[in-house]
């Protein structure tokens, strides 16, 4: 059983992810690293409605929780923790960002907040985008240089020192994509308002 306050943190952010349409009922995942251990959502649990027993604590390098963790995604989280300085991971399905990931190799925001905070979000691809070592490595490698990345057609992976930092990047990304989608509907010439913005895609 995980400490109540860790649980509350997962629960609150999980709920925010669901209510802001960044995940489906059972999709997405959240994890934190505590020393040489990891706390992550259990298979089949709903992030939007987490109960204390929905969180599993296990060793960083192998599963010793005694519970079958579905998370095909656990491997990804572990690999990220082993190869980046991340202390928290937020994986979700931001729908507009996913839509954009289907036709681009990188997302370069046009709105102020995401330009300022994120600059550029690379898109990586993996055929069986569920929990294979290849996918884990690809995602982890991309996260070595960017704090949030897209897995084409699947969703975003964001890292931070804390869960709410990782959530912050995820939420900013989705907002940014929704703004860009709106500009496509508005369909008027873009007026550049940022200095040096031509360099963002070289970030």
């Amino acid at each position, binding site marked *: 059983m995980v400490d109540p306050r860790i649980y509350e943190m997962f629960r609150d952010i999980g709920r925010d992810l669901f209510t802001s349409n960044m995940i489906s009922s059972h999709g997405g995942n959240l994890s*934190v*690293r*505590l*020393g*040489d251990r990891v706390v992550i959502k259990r298979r089949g649990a709903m992030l939007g409605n987490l109960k204390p027993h929905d969180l599993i604590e296990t060793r960083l390098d192998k599963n010793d929780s005694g519970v079958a963790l579905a998370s095909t995604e656990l491997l990804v989280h572990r690999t990220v923790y082993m*190869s*980046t*300085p991340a*202390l928290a991971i937020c994986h979700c399905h931001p729908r507009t960002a996913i839509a954009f990931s289907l036709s681009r190799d990188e997302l370069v925001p046009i709105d102020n907040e995401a330009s*300022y905070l994120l*600059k550029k979000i690379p898109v990586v691809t993996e055929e069986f985008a569920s929990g294979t070592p290849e996918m884990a490595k690809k995602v982890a490698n991309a*996260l*070595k*240089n*960017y*704090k949030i990345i897209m897995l084409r057609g699947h969703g975003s992976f964001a890292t*931070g*020192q*804390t869960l*709410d*930092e990782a959530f912050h990047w995820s939420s900013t990304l989705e907002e940014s994509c929704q703004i860009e989608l709106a500009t496509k509907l508005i369909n008027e010439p873009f007026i550049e308002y940022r*200095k*040096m913005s031509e*360099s963002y895609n*070289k*970030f």
Partner: protein
Amino acid sequence: MTGWNEKILDVDLTTQTYKTYPLDMEMARLFIGGRGLGARLLWDLVGPEVDPLSPENVLIFTNGPLTATGYQTSNRFSVTTKSPLTGTVLDANSGGFWGMQFKKAGYDVMIVRGKAEKPVWIEIKNDVITFHDASDLWGMRVFALTEKLGQNNNKRNVLCIGPAGENLSRIASIMNDRERALARGGPGAVMGSKNLKAIVVEGKDRTQIDDPERFKFLLYETRKLLAASPLTSQALPEFGTVVLMNIMNNIGALATRNHQQTQFEGAEAISGEELTEKYLVKNSSCWACPIGCTRISKTEKVEGEGPEFESTWAFGAQCGIDDLPAIIEANSLCNDLGLDTISAGSTIACGMELSEKGYMDADLRFGRADQLAPVLEAMAYRRDIGSDLADGSLRLATKYGHPELSMSAKGMEMPAYDPRGMQGQGLLYATSNRGGCHMRGNMVGPEVLGLPKLIDRFQVQGKSSFVILHQNVSAAIDSLVVCKFTNMGVADEYFARVLSSVTGIHYDTGEMTRVGERVWNLERLYNLREGFSMKDDTLPPRLLNEAPADGPSQGWVVQLEPMLKEYYRGRVWDENGIPKKQKLEELGLASLI
């Protein structure tokens, strides 16, 4: 050739000769510059058989590929040596202008070996290196000497020692640009033991940048970020680092009277607010720095740079003194004598406790502001009581039978943050490779200020992850070399990109943090080779056993043991704190042992 100059200047004081040779670029790629490169070179040059104050010890001055590029705060540099205070690897880091000029002179590294028969000073003007007789300069204090040798911030920069270094005080600093300091761990004594009084440098070169367009973009973004962060754009320029005094006191983590308490009733009187209101002339900055945290303070007796938070604390709360002008004057005196303010203040405080308790027959007393100046003078010249205090609090307290009253870790005096109010800081002090130091992974960001996010300062489990991360990142920043205050507005991912754009070598954020981890592990190996072990990863008994009686930290002691166990596991070291083979292989260090 971009970023680095790719050249080492190797000086032998014994023969008064020098040579230059190429920097090993593979080594540079792995360790970058500054602290990292210094540590790697020290590993080869100074082994366990070398006494820090003997001619066989070396001083390794390093800058980095970013130095002098004009990137924000790209003025800093390091000196690496074996510390006469702690016996560990020591790197000290300073700002100002000297580092920038040294880079312009065409070198990445200067190694100083041996010992001059009589006092000398060295003048560097790009390819022209001159040894000058310093017999008539020996004995001069830092301010007068700096002026005499022709200090001009942008063109000609003086690095020197004062009387404290000449007299081999183990807490003596090396000063540059008059009032900037390579302060901790006694590098001044090493320089004094070599009869080297000063190094003056003039340079002409410009650092080459691989991708100027990308560099310009990152420069602009950094400027935006620093301007947007209230810490770097408002709090630090307006109040300086002393702005922390009231906060640390409020939360009960301000060490007071030799760590006997965690709050100081006189904190307000020595706060940043008080300094700004009554004694501040203006703020100032190092080369290429938009933050401007430097204070220029004025009392009836002195006007000059400082004081910083730590200096104000060391002569203030730690000594039970609330007389801010006296503290400002003590800080100025330390700069002129060439003494580390933190160690000096905390050593005096130790002396105060020893005297008050009757272990030491002296009239040092907490709260006696009038004692600061005379005692500091005595320390620099090893006169009377000064001879006992000149070598730091551990040697002092040990001499008088109570080593436990030295508030130090591995022999280096701990700074202001009392770890009974910040558990992570306690772990940091205990594991820091150069001893009780806050600048090698300062937890004040996450544990107090909420940078990037606030974490519970009393919580123990999981804390080591943050300490490890901050230690690694600090080590990387110290190797670039830039100022850690930039990191308060700019995330690490920017530094990795700036490094890439300058050098043309691809570093991602993970790789840059990996450099920090590599440096940290190398320093650990160095200390292990010197004979340090897990039993040295500890804190004074007071912090482990004596809980504050009141205040917000009431009842808390540092829970070191569980944090340390988790820390070793997190770093992939064995239960004795020795890096495991797999970790060393991963970092490319396995070949060293």
